[in-house]
């Protein structure tokens, strides 16, 4: 920890200054982790997505392991807002670390009223998980399209003065456009990204490995894909991009910062190595020290692109 003293580890995400750029990803963090790491070391804390209604979550099995990652279809089991305010929130208020509350709703109005209800002391920012189905648009996730993203962001912006982070899905072909829509409608940051829709089939039973048939891939396997999304989104918007996908060591986090992320979220890696976020924080400090970089924020978007490197997308899909 002594290394961290020399390096300015702080980053700014919209109106918030974080002590360092490392925080958990929604759905992979809860009070239980306090038995392993000191929450006062984190840049921020992010809750599992909550909804207004009580929800059961998906049928089992909810998780299946893959080479270099896992697919999950947990769903959003939720105990509702009162339970959250009375029981969950007090677990986090003692810490000197901003708490980001992840929310979801089936309509733009639903998002807005939930955000309003949760704009209370102890909540430092709202992360809107818009990778969920929009029942007003035939069940397509809000973040699949720029228009629906703009609409839900606008509703949210009107409903809360808290910093507003929009968490996008990588299952669209239009991430940079969707990010621009979020920015245009007043988001303070975009989180790139949620999991990648995936599937596995059990060769003994011929049944899908997950109760929900499909689920979201996370872990190291998705890193090169999501890193590209972050690179593209960071070039598309002026607001901060928070990178999230497969980060499991300080080098991965540094790669995301270089690609343009202002902070990173760590999810699945915590399941394998529960203290990994603290290792990443210390490792980022060492990374900077070894290279005589005084502030971790100097890494943000510092990828060196040479003239000759302008991408010739050839048989690949275009680089936005």
């Amino acid at each position, binding site marked *: 920890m002594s290394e961290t003293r020399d390096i300015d580890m702080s980053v700014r995400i919209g109106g918030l200054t974080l002590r360092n750029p490392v925080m958990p990803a929604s759905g992979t963090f809860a*009070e*239980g982790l306090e038995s392993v790491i000191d929450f006062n070391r984190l840049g921020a804390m992010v809750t599992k997505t909550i909804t207004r209604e009580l929800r059961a979550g998906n049928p089992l099995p909810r*998780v299946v392991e893959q*080479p270099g990652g896992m697919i999950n279809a947990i769903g959003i*089991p939720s*105990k509702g807002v009162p339970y959250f305010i009375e029981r969950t929130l007090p677990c986090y208020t003692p810490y000197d670390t901003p708490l980001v509350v992840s929310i979801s709703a089936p309509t733009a109005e639903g998002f807005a009223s939930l955000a309003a209800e949760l704009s209370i002391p102890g909540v430092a920012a709202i992360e809107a998980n818009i990778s969920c189905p929009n029942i007003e648009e035939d069940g397509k996730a809000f973040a699949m399209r720029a228009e629906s993203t703009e609409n839900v962001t606008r509703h949210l912006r009107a409903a809360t003065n808290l910093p507003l982070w929009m968490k996008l899905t990588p299952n669209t072909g239009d991430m940079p456009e969707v990010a621009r829509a979020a920015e245009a409608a007043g988001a303070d940051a975009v989180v790139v990204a949620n999991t990648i829709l995936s599937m596995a089939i059990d060769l003994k039973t011929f049944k899908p490995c997950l109760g929900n048939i499909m689920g979201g891939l996370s872990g190291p396997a998705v890193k090169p894909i999501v890193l590209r999304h972050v690179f593209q989104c960071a070039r598309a918007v002026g607001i901060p991009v928070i990178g999230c996908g497969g980060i499991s060591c300080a080098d991965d986090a540094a790669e995301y910062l270089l690609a343009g992320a202002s902070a990173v979220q760590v999810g699945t890696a915590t399941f*394998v190595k*529960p203290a990994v976020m603290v290792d990443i924080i210390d490792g980022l400090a060492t990374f900077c020290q070894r290279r005589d970089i005084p502030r971790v924020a100097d890494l943000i978007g510092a990828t060196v692109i040479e003239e000759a490197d302008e991408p010739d997308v050839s048989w690949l899909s275009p680089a936005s």
Partner: protein
Amino acid sequence: MAVHRDLSPETPPPPPPAEEDDSHARWKASVVSELARVVDNRAINAEYRHLVADCGEESAQARPGQFFQLLCPQPPGGGQPFLRRPMSLYGVDPEKRRVEFLYKVAGLGTRGLETLRAGDRLDIMGPLGQGFRLNADCRHIVAVGRGAGLATLAPLAKAAEARGIGVTAILSARRPDLLVSVELFRHHGAEVITVTDSQSTSGPANVERLLRRLIAEGRCDAFFTCGSSRLMGVQQRLAREFDLPGQVAMEQQMACGIGLCHCCVRDFNVNGEIVSRRVCWDGPVFDLMEALP
């Protein structure tokens, strides 16, 4: 009966967070992931292997019914197990700082465990979950186990002995040679009754007869069980009939092992309402009467 899945009861509150002025100094991990050093790892019968490892202070505080999440090495032939694998504590020595596991080779992860040799490192994470509670006013308990449950129940023997509580262990297996923990229970003064499929003694009817006799003899103040939902059903019936308490250790596939991911939920019947609980965090040991098969 209202169905609300995933409405866990209050989870145990986290340890009080440190105060601001001195936070880093005060906070202390109660769960660690560490590189334990393998002392021994050998087959004890045709199905089970016994793994002994030197560990740190925190791991050596593990209590009966708790478990560890093991990061299994890659087995020969490739395929790196990505997630950790849950394993019950089979034995622990806080002085020597040593933990023991008893495992059956099932798939990728346990095939990896099989490759470990003395001196190798193994990343263990624990101790995890809510273990068995041994009530002081218990005089005599009955432990009923089968399969991996024989490993899970084993550390109760020493703990009960230490508290002067008598133990009768009913240990079930397919064949006599597949029974484990028999000597361990005896060593700690327990009476051991073995029942097996090959001897046609392991059926629920016979176990119920054995249990009724123990209850009649006043040698069953509480049930402790793991590894067979049929035998759990027998005990639930008897517990209701005789108003006896009981605890059951449950299994479920896990990812995080510390209550973060909600992949290990099971339904429980709490006063007629179905609630969903996380086996890793709210359990793995649950009230016998609330468990559903």
